[in-house]
């Protein structure tokens, strides 16, 4: 059940947006489609929704094959980055739209809309127009509108992308709680790895029209399948072909043969945490994450040359020709 995408390809003129993509989204899960812009993640979401027709491949929603099934009949909820609020309708009319299309009675529409507005904390805003709402409120309205028709799956395309940082964080946490209450299979697209790690139970990382890896946030972080995933999901540095996370490096005062020499440019302490910015002999610069007590006990100073010992490194052979 849930959503299954099998061997989907899609081209726009000469641009390959999706290249033989297959994914599996468990029923009731909250999954992030993560990738840089142009990686094909939004196209994949739109293909699942039926807003784009794939050139080849098949999408199953709740076990039903959706080939040729128009978007109207897929029973999905879709939330757009820029809200797509119906500007000539009030908040109430926006949320009621899908129910009205389905020909439900006035009374049941009014009841359902009231419930949803309460759920998204917009009770009292029913008679406002979208241009009288803030960005965050508009997006909550859009979510209520999508949920109104009790969709089989909820698809969100960069839902927080147009909001400022504070509101974005708030809405993230709120989406998470909402999902815990509703348990509707949800996919959201984002280019923000922190957002994906924060909200999702499962992350699918895309790059250049293909899926790089999918797994839980921890799996992706601890066992990245490629250089791209290593670098995209969390910070990583490349020291002589070996990849290492900034907190997986020990700094030693004594220079020795096993370590890599580096010059300390700057030490930044942020409360408990500390960041050491270094330059390697070959001119590459990078950052080591450590703690303030570590810095204090080693008595590190800016301008010193120290020795670096990576604790956990990874080598990827995906840069070699297959």
């Amino acid at each position, binding site marked *: 059940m849930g959503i299954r995408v099998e061997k989907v390809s899609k081209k726009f003129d000469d641009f390959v947006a999706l290249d033989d993509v297959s994914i599996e989204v468990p029923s009731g899960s909250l999954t992030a489609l993560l990738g840089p812009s142009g990686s094909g993640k939004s196209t994949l979401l739109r293909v699942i929704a039926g807003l784009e027709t794939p050139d080849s491949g098949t999408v199953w929603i709740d076990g039903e094959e959706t080939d040729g099934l128009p978007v*109207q009949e897929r029973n999905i909820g879709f939330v*757009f980055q*820029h809200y797509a609020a*119906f*500007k*000539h309708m009030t908040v109430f009319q926006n949320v009621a739209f899908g129910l009205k*299309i*389905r020909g439900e009675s006035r009374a049941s529409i009014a009841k359902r809309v009231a419930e949803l507005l309460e759920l998204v904390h917009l009770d009292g805003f029913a008679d406002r127009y979208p241009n009288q709402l803030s960005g965050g409120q508009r997006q909550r309205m859009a979510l209520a509108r999508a949920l109104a028709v009790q969709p089989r799956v909820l698809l969100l395309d960069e839902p927080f992308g*147009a909001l400022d940082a504070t509101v974005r964080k708030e809405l993230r946490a709120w989406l998470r709680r909402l999902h815990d209450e509703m348990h509707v299979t949800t996919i959201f697209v984002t280019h923000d790895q922190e957002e994906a790690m924060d909200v999702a139970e499962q992350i699918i990382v895309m790059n250049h029209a293909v899926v790089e890896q999918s797994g839980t946030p921890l799996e992706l972080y601890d066992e990245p399948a490629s250089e791209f995933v290593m670098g995209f999901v969390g910070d990583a540095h490349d020291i002589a072909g070996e990849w290492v996370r900034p907190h997986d490096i020990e700094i030693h005062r004594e220079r020795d043969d096993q370590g890599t020499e580096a010059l300390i440019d700057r030490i930044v302490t942020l409360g408990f945490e500390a960041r050491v910015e270094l330059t390697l002999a070959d001119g590459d610069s990078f950052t080591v994450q450590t703690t303030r007590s570590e810095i204090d006990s080693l008595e590190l100073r800016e301008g010193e040359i120290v020795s670096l010992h990576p604790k956990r490194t990874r080598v990827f052979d995906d840069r070699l020709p297959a």
Partner: protein
Amino acid sequence: MTTSERLVKYGLRSIAIGYLAAILVIPLGIMFWKTFGEGLAGPIETVTSEEGLHAFWMTMLCAGIAVPLNTIFGVAAALVLVRQKMRGKAFLNVLIDLPFAVSPVVIGLSLLLVYGEQGWLGGTLSDVGIEIIFSTPGLVLATIFVSLPFVVREVQPVLQEIGTDQEEASSTLGATSWQTFWRITLPSIRWGLTYGVVLATARALGEYGAVAVVSGKISGQTETLPLLVENEYANFNTEGAYAAAIVLALIAITVLVAMNLIRRRSEQAGEPEPNIEPDPGMVRGRD
């Protein structure tokens, strides 16, 4: 405010107001004065004469057919131009501008060439008893031709501006294309559409050149108000000509005022004007 700033401010104002006065207000004012200067009897007689009433009726008929047709065509063409990928779109664009670019007299002549007695289609149609030229259908065709571009050109940029998000959202909520058009697209373009309809109406009411060529100016049969104005003037009935002209002007002003009233009423009902500026949230998001 410095002297030069003041100079700019009042200079600009006097240019704007002086220009409007010289071009519009003074001639129209003099026309009113001339019309009613010698009493109301003459003008009223012209307007309420059989020819006058018929011309009024003809003008309303032509506009009444041309504007709705051009509205339907205009919305459809704007949708095609903005929303669809199609070969030859640039060509369609040029075609739509043609009535703007070509002199109305030329439009009239081209209709003659097609539908006239010796025309390409005219002979055949005439054989089955359909007369186009020197009869009502010709007037309607000419009016359609000259008022064609307005709705397309006003609706097109609005469609571009609103994008497809709202329509897509509507379809994900289960609305068919037809439902989406009526409930989402049409309300979103309503102001552009209204403006286009008003412009097309004004043009349809006032058209002279193209209509003059195909009409034959048969008084009481194929004479519209603008033709009547010209006719009366040529027959040295200046008051009559002015009176007919004023009726024409009043109809146009009524259309404009009606549009403004509709607009104001829907605003009072709490419905905000379409927010065509980008959302603040959208701008903020591009950080």
